[in-house]
């Protein structure tokens, strides 16, 4: 049994921070300042650990440890470098919500940290058992976060919907694992890949059914149509401060797991699953765009747009392992954008509020030019306007699909991306070209949200103008 503490270092560090946070909080009640310190230390430590993993194990140096349970490779390390800072940003954006919950705020911080470790485990898993455990750790934390404001009916509704549907999807996913296990005799991701490469299955029915069910579970997590129906309800109902991390984290972790399972474990079967993934991508893009067009709530609109974005990211995956760098580019840039967009929603409509009716945003430019400018930039980025990261991301995933001979999918994507511009632009029109209500005054922006927005805004433009360092980097973010 080959052990390497570095493999679990990020998780261990976060868990130590969580335990310290809880115990000291119970004993001395030092309050939010301590929570922030503990969380910051945990996240900084974990980020340092994944950075170390990145330095030592990316590219060809990847290896797996603990009886082939956890991999250290560029893939998992990059996922960690996205997820842990994302958790940090999510906490900063949610700080007003945490403060408003009194002593329970500590639980919120803990749940976000644990969700982040679960998400990283999903990305770093080298075994389907590990992947499942990570998935559940991540999901269960999110179920609770979605209903964190207990007294509000739309939050608890979001939590219950998310939980019930998530549990169903998990069960289907598990059934899929069982079937794949039955046909390959192993749950190791590398082992499955080796087995499928070296063996010709005479009767692949069981494996095929297993693949289908795995795909269902993963497509649910990333909210690809037709498994997306929970997303709008949950995004809209969950408290404003939660939604950002919920949406961003689920995309990063879900796509990491999906790339591992599809492109690595089932990589030899790409001809079977790629057409199905392409159809899922097309349906997600079209349905997400169409439904986003008719929304009257910003958070709900962003939820549907996230369905469309899930479709765009799936577009990269039809190229199999070759599409992984492009997938990462899109996932990473989109995750920070969506986090920031929900942060704006939580500032304008309230961190504990679920709903964010678009009427809150009319004339935002005069109430807070700063917020309006940021939201406008994010909308342009999500729409894929050149000189933002969103444009490069779209170009990258389309290129992957073209290389894989899925030109029809690219055309569907291009047409929908153009149509999608309308609903993003409508937000800008509302903010800049209509007058605000007279009684609504200036909106103060909390410090945490300000940091998040500045960081994301700078990243979005910087990566949009000079994307090549990240693109070059990502060539090493490949799975074992």
């Amino acid at each position, binding site marked *: 049994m080959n052990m390497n503490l570095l493999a679990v270092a990020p998780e261990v560090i976060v868990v130590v921070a969580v335990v310290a946070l809880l115990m000291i909080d119970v004993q001395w009640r030092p309050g939010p300042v301590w929570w922030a310190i503990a969380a910051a230390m945990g996240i900084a430590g974990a980020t340092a650990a994944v950075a170390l993993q990145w330095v030592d194990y990316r590219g060809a140096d990847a290896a797996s440890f603990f009886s082939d349970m956890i991999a250290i490779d560029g893939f998992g390390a990059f996922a960690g470098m996205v997820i842990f800072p994302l958790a940090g940003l999510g906490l900063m954006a949610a700080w007003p919500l945490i403060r408003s919950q009194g002593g329970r705020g500590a639980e919120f911080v803990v749940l976000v940290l644990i969700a982040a470790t679960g998400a990283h485990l999903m990305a770093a898993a080298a075994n389907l058992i590990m992947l499942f455990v990570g998935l559940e750790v991540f999901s269960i934390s999110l179920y609770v976060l979605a209903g964190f404001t207990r007294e509000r009916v739309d939050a608890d509704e979001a939590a219950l919907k998310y939980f019930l*549907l998530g549990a169903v999807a998990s069960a289907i996913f598990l059934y899929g694992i069982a079937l794949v296990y039955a046909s390959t005799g192993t749950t190791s991701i590398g082992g499955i890949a080796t087995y499928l490469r070296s063996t010709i299955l005479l009767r692949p029915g069981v494996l095929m059914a297993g693949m*289908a*069910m795995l795909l269902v579970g993963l497509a649910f997590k990333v909210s690809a149509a037709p498994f997306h129906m929970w997303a709008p309800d949950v995004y809209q109902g969950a408290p404003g401060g939660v939604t950002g991390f919920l949406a961003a984290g689920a995309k990063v972790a879900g796509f990491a797991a999906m790339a591992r399972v599809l492109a690595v474990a089932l990589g030899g079967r790409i001809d079977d699953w790629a057409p199905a993934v392409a159809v899922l991508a097309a349906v997600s893009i079209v349905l997400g765009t169409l439904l986003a067009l008719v929304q009257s709530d910003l958070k709900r609109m962003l939820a549907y747009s996230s369905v469309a974005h899930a479709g765009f990211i799936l577009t990269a995956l039809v190229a199999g392992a070759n599409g992984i760098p492009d997938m990462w580019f899109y996932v990473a840039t989109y995750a920070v954008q969506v986090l920031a967009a929900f942060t704006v929603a939580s500032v304008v409509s309230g961190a504990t509020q679920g709903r964010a009716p678009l009427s809150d945003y009319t004339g935002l430019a005069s109430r807070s030019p700063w917020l309006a400018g940021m939201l406008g930039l994010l909308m342009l980025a999500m729409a894929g306007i*050149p000189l933002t990261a969103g444009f490069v991301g779209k170009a990258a995933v389309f290129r992957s699909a073209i290389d894989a001979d899925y030109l029809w999918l690219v055309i569907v994507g291009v*047409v929908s991306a153009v149509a999608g511009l309308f*609903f993003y*632009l409508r937000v800008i029109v509302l903010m800049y070209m209509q007058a605000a209500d007279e009684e609504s005054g200036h909106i103060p922006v909390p410090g945490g949200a300000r940091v998040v927005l500045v960081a994301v805004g700078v990243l979005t433009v910087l990566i949009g103008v000079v994307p090549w360092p990240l693109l070059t980097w990502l060539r090493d973010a490949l799975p074992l």
Partner: protein
Amino acid sequence: MTGTLVSLAILLPLGGSVVLLFAGKRLPEPLAGVIATLTVAGAFGCAAVAAVDFLTGAGEALTVRWFDWMPAFGVDASLGWDRLSALMTLVVTGVGALIHLYSIGYMKGDARFGRFFTYLNLFIASMLILVLADNFAMLFVGWELVGLCSYLLISFWFERETAAAAGKKAFIVNRVGDVGFIVALMVVFAHFGSFRFDTVFESAPEVLTTGTATAIGLLLLVGAAGKSAQLPLYVWLPDAMEGPTPVSALIHAATMVTAGVYMVARTGAIFGMAPIAAGTVAVVGAATALYAATIAVAQTDIKRVLAYSTISQLGYMFMGVGAAAYVAGVFHLMTHSFFKALLFLGAGSVIHGMHGEQDMAKMGGLRRKMPATFATMTIAWLAISGIPPLAGFWSKDEILGTVFERGGAWTVLWGVGLLTALLTAFYMTRMMWLTFFGEPRWDDGVHPHESPAVMTIPLLALAGLSVVGGLVNTPFRTTLEHFLDPVFDAVRLAHVPTGSTAVALAGASVIAALIGIGLAALRYRDRVPDETGFAWRLMGRGYYVDDVYGQVFARSGKLAAAWLAFRFDARGIDGAVEGMGALTRKTGGWLRPIQTGFVRTSAAGVVLGAVALLGWFLWRGGL
């Protein structure tokens, strides 16, 4: 050295817009405009110095590399400086600088004076990115940015509902064209694995079949038709006149709308392999030219006459580049930008003097009140009508001559072009007479006055260019053709007729122009005839195409949803929310009920999706 100058040409206006974005509100009024004007004039200076080598014949095309941009696409952020982009840069910055100067006077006292120049500078920078791009990706960046600036500037006075709506309309129609353009880019990349112009054009003959080249050409045409307002995507341009007049002059007459023509000329290598696509370009151009000219005849708003006239003239350019007369097309692009900018600025001067009145029925007799405007407008009027030796005559005649020379079915296009020339002369004369001649029909309290010097100086400069601009490429002195020759090295160019044919054709166009002018002069000499008959109303409303589009779009598809959403938004503060309610019932209605919000429905969605996937995989597995 040259490379630095070329980069500076973009960076100056870009820097100007950044400075104005942050400091625009604090600067005293004329200063913001002066800074903006100086940056554009500086860009013109840089471009002119950099282009000197080309004029002496010594210059070589060169690539100015900025930085790696998207290496995966074989794309750098780099500029291509060749003769065609040099010419375009000079036109854009030259005309742009004059219009900036004019705007200082025109926008005087506007609440968002600084903001206006921010946008205007940003537009120049974007347009330069477009014309200086050395690959399709950069071209697309410029393409999108000019679209964005156009949108911002059309709806600059967004307090006016019509202006806000016009901006959205322009944006939406352009997006339709962009779909074609982006798909074309994707097809190009799928075949060449690169976006670089030189790679694509050099290997085009080996890589592309005629069918693929035709497909790419037609898709590019869709994009070009959107940006250059050709049939059937022209509808946004007349509405775009809601923007401030200098914007109409700069963007919607002189520069941005010519992007489509430029793009077709740039991709001549591909169109050269696809005669059907090139022919379609020419037919679309000819049809648009005639169609828009008939509408222009019946307009009463001075700016709408010019708008339709622009569409018509762009049709000429399309006819030219479609007929592989790239030099002629680009030549007309250049001369047109001189005299059309002049016409718009003159119209702006008239509107300024008439306190915002745009209806020609309420003008008349202005020639004595506004002598400078009148004199310069007269030159532009004769230029666009095709009276030698003014600029418009040479370029238009060259296009028509080349089309005729190709013979066969092209002769029909020549006939259409000639008829359009007659109509052009007619409606321009009508406009001149209604505005400047006859008895005053001003509203009470309107006291027309000549505009300040800051506005008339650009008029004079443009008038000068409209006179001499055509002389760079006459049958006697083919300087421009010679100048552009290296650009179209690899492309088969159509030939200009020579000898007696040329004289006869030139004579025909001049006669057509004179007939047009004569008819209009007779009709409008001493009265304003009643123009409310059925045919006049039909043409005046642009054949009701807008209304039909509205109806069609309102009924179907996602475009409808978007279009409606914008329209409702424009109605007012509550409109957004109410509109979306109405929208739900109308268009989203058939899709949205899926999303009942019930847990059991969502679970059913998951299960159905799972069953579908299972079905696919089991079928693949041979079960």
